[in-house]
């Protein structure tokens, strides 16, 4: 009996030793040193949607500080928009005029060859009391699209090789947004599955 217990004990010991060795995995030092002490919330997925309702509310915004070029901003940069006019839904005021709306520069697309314009994608709009999943996720500002000229020119020049290739070097316009540029964001108040109750 004792012998049996002994064998069992040794077996358990080796199993534990093996599993502790298997647990030695590469740790992400970058995360451990820079993120662990921060309060981080879990991103909430949009899973309880219900697209039955067709109500849509237009929110008119303008950026507070103009951006002259995509080179002047970085991804993740906080930006502010202001609401241009009162927003009502079913006769009720839901967003006041001049309300400041924080947002972020999400993705920057640099201008490229063939006249492809630069682009700034804004997102993460934060409206007080409104579920972020019920509003447009992003708003994109694009520079001058010169590919409209480049592609026809390139094709026209194919009969004179290699001149068409030179059109590759025409770059697209910079993405800019002035403080008087109208930005439209859409709010869908009843896209959540909660027995038709209004989300505000």
């Amino acid at each position, binding site marked *: 009996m004792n012998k049996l217990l002994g064998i069992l004990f040794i077996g358990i010991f080796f199993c534990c030793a093996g599993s502790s060795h298997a647990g030695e995995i590469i740790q992400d030092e970058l995360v451990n040193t820079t993120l662990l002490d921060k309060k981080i*919330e879990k991103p909430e997925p*949009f899973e309880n949607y219900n697209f039955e309702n067709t109500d849509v509310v237009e929110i008119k915004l303008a950026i507070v500080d103009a951006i002259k070029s995509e080179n002047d901003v970085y991804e993740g940069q906080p930006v502010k928009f202001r609401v241009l006019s009162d927003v009502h839904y079913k006769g009720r005021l839901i967003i006041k005029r001049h309300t400041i709306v924080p947002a972020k520069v999400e993705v920057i697309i640099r201008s490229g060859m063939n006249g492809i314009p630069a682009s700034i994608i804004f997102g993460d709009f934060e409206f007080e009391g409104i579920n972020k999943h019920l509003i447009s996720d992003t708003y994109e500002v694009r520079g001058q699209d010169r590919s409209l000229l480049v592609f026809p020119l390139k094709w026209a020049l194919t009969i004179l090789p290699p001149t068409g290739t030179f059109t590759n070097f025409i770059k697209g316009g910079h993405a800019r947004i002035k403080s008087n540029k109208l930005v439209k964001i859409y709010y869908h108040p009843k896209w959540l599955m909660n027995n038709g109750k209004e989300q505000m």
Partner: protein
Amino acid sequence: MIKNFIILLAVIFMTVPAFCADNTEIVQEQTVQNKIDDIGTKLLNSNKIQERIMFVYDEADKKALLKLDTKMTSRRVFMYEGAYKFADNDDEIAAFLARGIVIAAKSFDGYFKGGLNSLQIAASPKKYEVIADKLAVDLMVNAGFNPLGLITYINKTVPQRRYDAISNKNLASKRLAFIYEYIYNKYPYFLVNNEYLENEHYQNFLLNSQNNRRLLMKKIETGSKEKIKYE
């Protein structure tokens, strides 16, 4: 009479296995197609993408995986058997489909009903490769998938080129670094509560991205806003 009966039996024996094999293949394809449809449609719905995009599972093999080809700009996302076999879980399938959705959705906006955008993507695949990666992360998170699945999927499927300066593709290591930085800045939750830390492919990514993660660490420590020149 007996002779005819034997001939009939022989014919039945010869044809039935062929039918069974065909049916099994069809059922298998149907199962994969349904899975791709479910994951793809969840990505569309959770991200409120109002454009109609189809998902197609095709057994035909394709040499280059995750290519931003013209088929994607035709508003259909093709997942070939060669790409599907690398996907270990739903996160990785979602990663593949999310990239396709980003490109397909772009083909709805702009001049000529999106035709010009499709041309631009075809003319500048290197640029849109990284953008598709970043936006795919957003789509995945909104739909409840873990964006680290994109890292493991690319780590498994995209070979490392020698150079990318004169190529129309980015180095896989650069793409992975950009994705990691994007997740670090926007969705750090997934790195702090890392479900992939014991995944062999994620561990391999941690191993092969040491230098790039050091560059990111330096950027964070110095508070620099400059774009990092990843290796």
